[in-house]
């Protein structure tokens, strides 16, 4: 047989999910056997890469921040979320009052999305204080969604630095924020343990 295994097929065979045809070819083809051997060698070499030490000890910085967060009021997720929302609200007010030059009128839909986002935050506040015990999988899903929200907030903040931020972009970002907040509510209220983005 002249058609050799593709890399996808070799990996599939290695991971015990290869097709019967590909396996049969592999068993009878020296070239493909050689490729499979290379694949194993590459992974073995990756596993044998030296263990690296972090260049600096970060514990001091981490512990100071943890202590500071514990002391601060509204130290949790809602602290930064509220700040980000306030910052964008300020931007919208700027847009509405003409402080930002060359702006189109803000779309009501943005304001609606911001209100939805705020309502979802209120719902989350209801859940949060009880500190429901989460298993590792749910906890990491929560972390991931919160990271996604931070990413959206980063982008909202960066819009503040633009001279002419577009209302369309604001609407997209706030829509995304509402979607993520909604997923966070679902996961935190233990209605689902898995959310696909």
């Amino acid at each position: 047989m002249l058609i050799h295994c593709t890399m996808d097929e070799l990996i599939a065979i290695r991971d015990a999910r290869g097709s019967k045809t590909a396996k049969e070819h592999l068993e009878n083809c020296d070239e493909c056997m050689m490729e499979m051997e290379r694949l194993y060698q590459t992974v073995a070499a990756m596993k044998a890469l030296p263990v690296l030490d972090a260049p600096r000890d970060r514990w001091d910085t981490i512990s100071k921040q943890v202590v500071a967060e514990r002391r601060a009021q509204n130290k949790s997720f809602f602290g930064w979320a509220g700040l980000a929302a306030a910052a964008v609200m300020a931007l919208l007010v700027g847009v509405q009052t003409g402080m930002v030059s060359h702006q189109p009128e803000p779309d009501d839909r943005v304001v609606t999305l911001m209100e939805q986002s705020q309502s979802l935050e209120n719902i989350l506040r209801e859940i949060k204080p009880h500190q429901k015990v989460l298993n590792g999988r749910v906890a990491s899903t929560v972390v991931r969604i919160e990271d996604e929200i931070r990413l959206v907030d980063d982008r909202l903040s960066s819009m503040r630095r633009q001279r002419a931020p577009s209302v369309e972009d604001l609407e997209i970002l706030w829509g995304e924020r509402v979607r993520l907040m909604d997923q966070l509510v679902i996961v935190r209220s233990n209605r689902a343990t898995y959310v696909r983005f």
Partner: protein
Amino acid sequence: MGEMQSALIAIDDIAIQRAKDGEMDALEQVFRAYQTTVYNTARRICRTAEDAEDVLQETFLEVCRSIASLRGEGTPSLTSWIRRIAASKALMKIRREKYRDADEFDEEFQGATSDADTALRMDLETAMTQLGDTARAVVWLHDVEGYTHEDIGEMMGKTVSFSKSQLARAHKKLRVWLNGGATC
């Protein structure tokens, strides 16, 4: 995982419980036990040592904030939880860096070396740095750290087939860069 497992310093159940209670000296023990594991995951996924250090810091901030809510007893559940946070933070870092560089540009062209440079064989560390961020992350998490495509898809917010195709893409490139010649 062999190398990194051996780098792990043992932490006992009492220390884990005290860390869950928020005691700073116990949290420091958790940090000391896992910092090498976390840093290595981060360093192999991120482009720079600085980014990996940021991931190390962000991971342990998250650990300190959330460890009280972790269910499951003993070291194994703590280990898998911390490793997963580290992987998620590292993946988030490369996404952020991509946004910073330029939205959605093709990772194929991130590396300075193209497939055409087959005459030059690279060492593995260099070859890893030449891979696109996503392909590098997937090959590391799947083939070295043992995550499934389902895990990786979930952490990236992508499909299982996306993870599989990134893994094949990574190996095709590594095959050319490490051994020379065309892939089959």
